[in-house]
């Protein structure tokens, strides 16, 4: 599903990713861990296509297509989804309006019938109930004034509605209370399936107790320095990155 080869990327001329290799197959969930500033969000942004993240070498292949050649919106429409570490506030744009526009753009792209207002309302109601999101939030402007946890849940609602083939979750668990973590984990698990792949970026074992990954990777200084099974996350939890022979917070 996703194959990353020798990826080098810079931001503002500063190299952040330095020869990163990663392969995720359909049906798999991979966790990416690593110290602050190691390049996890940068990887997520490169996959989503954010401007200013310049790929200087290497390749990213998604479903045997050159992902890097695609526009941001084309990536999204062909099934790539990024749950943001810091979801962006869009003043004046109603959450419900936005969701409908996004979902219908995806449906149109897939050649499916666009939802009308009633159908969409029913669908949203079902999905948000599962995520414990109340209707009031839907009537507010997108992410504006949402608490940290509300923003993350809203990201999960978007994911549930857009049903992506490849989801990259950038610290979706950060800022969630214990109950919300469980709710979000259930949401992620509900989307697991043989046709889907997920890249879950996290600092904590907590989430991985609920969403058990097929593989765990450690990213440091812009490369994958260690990969293993779900046990690797437990090992990190015990001994930290220092136990891997890495500097703690190896950002510099």
């Amino acid at each position, binding site marked *: 599903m996703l194959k990353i080869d020798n990826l080098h990327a810079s931001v503002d001329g500063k190299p952040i990713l330095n020869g990163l290799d990663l392969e995720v197959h359909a049906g798999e969930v991979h966790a990416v861990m690593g110290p602050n500033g190691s390049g996890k969000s940068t990887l997520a942004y490169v996959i989503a296509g*954010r*401007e200013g993240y310049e790929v200087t070498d290497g390749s990213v292949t998604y479903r045997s297509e050159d992902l890097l050649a695609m526009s*941001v919106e084309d990536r999204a429409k062909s099934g790539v989804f990024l749950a943001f570490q810091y979801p962006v506030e*869009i003043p004046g744009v109603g959450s419900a*309006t936005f969701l409908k*526009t996004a979902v219908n753009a995806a449906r149109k792209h897939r050649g499916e019938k666009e939802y009308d207002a009633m159908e969409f309302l029913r669908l949203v109601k079902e999905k948000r109930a599962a995520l414990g999101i109340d209707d009031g939030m839907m009537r507010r402007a997108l992410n504006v004034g949402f608490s940290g946890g509300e923003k993350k849940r809203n990201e999960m609602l978007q994911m549930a509605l857009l049903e992506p083939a490849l989801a990259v979750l950038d610290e979706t668990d950060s800022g969630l209370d214990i109950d919300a973590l469980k709710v979000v984990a259930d949401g992620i698990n509900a989307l697991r399936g043989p046709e889907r792949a997920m890249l879950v970026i996290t600092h904590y074992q907590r989430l991985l107790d609920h969403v058990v990954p097929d593989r765990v990777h450690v990213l440091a200084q812009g490369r994958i320095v260690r990969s293993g099974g779900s046990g690797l996350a437990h090992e990190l939890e015990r001994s930290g990155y220092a136990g891997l022979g890495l500097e703690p917070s190896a950002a510099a």
Partner: protein
Amino acid sequence: MPAPRTIPFDYPAPKAGAAAALPGAGLPWLDALRAEGRQLSADGLPGTRMEAWKYTSLAPLAALAFPPPGEPVAEAEPGAGAFDTIGGPALAFVNGRLDARHSRLDTLPAGLRVRGLAQALSDDPAQVEGLIGDTVPNGDPMAAFNAAFAADGCIVETAPGAVVDEPLRLRFAAAPGSGPLAWHPRVVVRLGAGSRLALIESHEGLAGEATWSNPLVDVGIGAGAALSHVKLQAEGAGAYHTALTRTALAADARYESHLLALGARLARHEIHIRFDGEGARCLLHGGYMARGSQHVDNTTVIDHRVPHCESREVYKGVLDDTARGVFQGRIVVHRDAQKTDGHQLNRTLLLSPKAEIDTKPELEIYADDVKCSHGATAGEPEADQLFYLRSRGLDLRTARALIVEGFMNELLEAVGHEGARAVLLAQVAAWIGEARP
């Protein structure tokens, strides 16, 4: 060559017979007022060397040739109005003249009195003298044209304590006609103590022809009364619009202005607020959207003469292509106006590198115990916001449109009347929909 202080403007004097056709001709006070206006306007249009007109040049207006005022105006079809769906009482002015066929005054709510200017002048000239008979406001150059040439208008009054539920619509429509036309409507609004009214003023035109509308709207709000004033300016691409709205607030009065300016080749919306009584508040919300080579100017003067008044101004707009925007916001706090609370904000989204906004805040504060602030931002839609929306599959155009719409909607959400708000939101959406791909 220095810019001229005034721009010569060959605005025709009414023909001998036509002057007599202006309503109220022969009333000595009115003849004197008109003569004063004519004398002031004979200097021409204000030039860019005048501080208040520094960023807005009326030179293209001066190049137009208008027929003499007071000539009869042929009946014309104005087409549908933007606020028709709202219903309720309405006055329609077509090509500057009150048009009974398109007006609805048969069902006036209790406590509301509405008369055409001509009617009022013939029924009760002494009362009208009390309302408009003073000299040209501030010696203002555009008000001078209005004083000299106003051929129509209306007087709106509420009885003390009257709570008028239905909004009153005042529609000024340009109908497809022949050749350039100008009108100088004079509108007087007086709210009795403790009364409430919503006024919806719209300036609309289908015609691409050159028109000049120069309304002077004079508002007086009695003690504890509240006026919500919605204004839509959506005239055609050949139109010039120079409006002065001046509002005086008595103690504990409240004035809300919700302006949406979309139309005209050049439009200036000047609002003067004067606090005469303590505890009064005003909220000025102005939205502007311009593209092509449109020019839109918002100029406000808020005169805090007495203590304990509050003014809030938020002007937000979107400029595309080579459109130009101007925001001039002056706040004057007199020496005795302690505890004044005045805030002003101007924010502009620039959708093209050639679009421009000139913002000039001016705070003149002579009291020492006040809270006053101003702020301004201008720039492209934020890259973070665009990326977020595109990462959800919205193409760049849709993402920009959504951000622009949200930017304007934030302002219009404050419009209290639901029907009026819906119309304004639809106007914004339509403006965005007209964008070139």
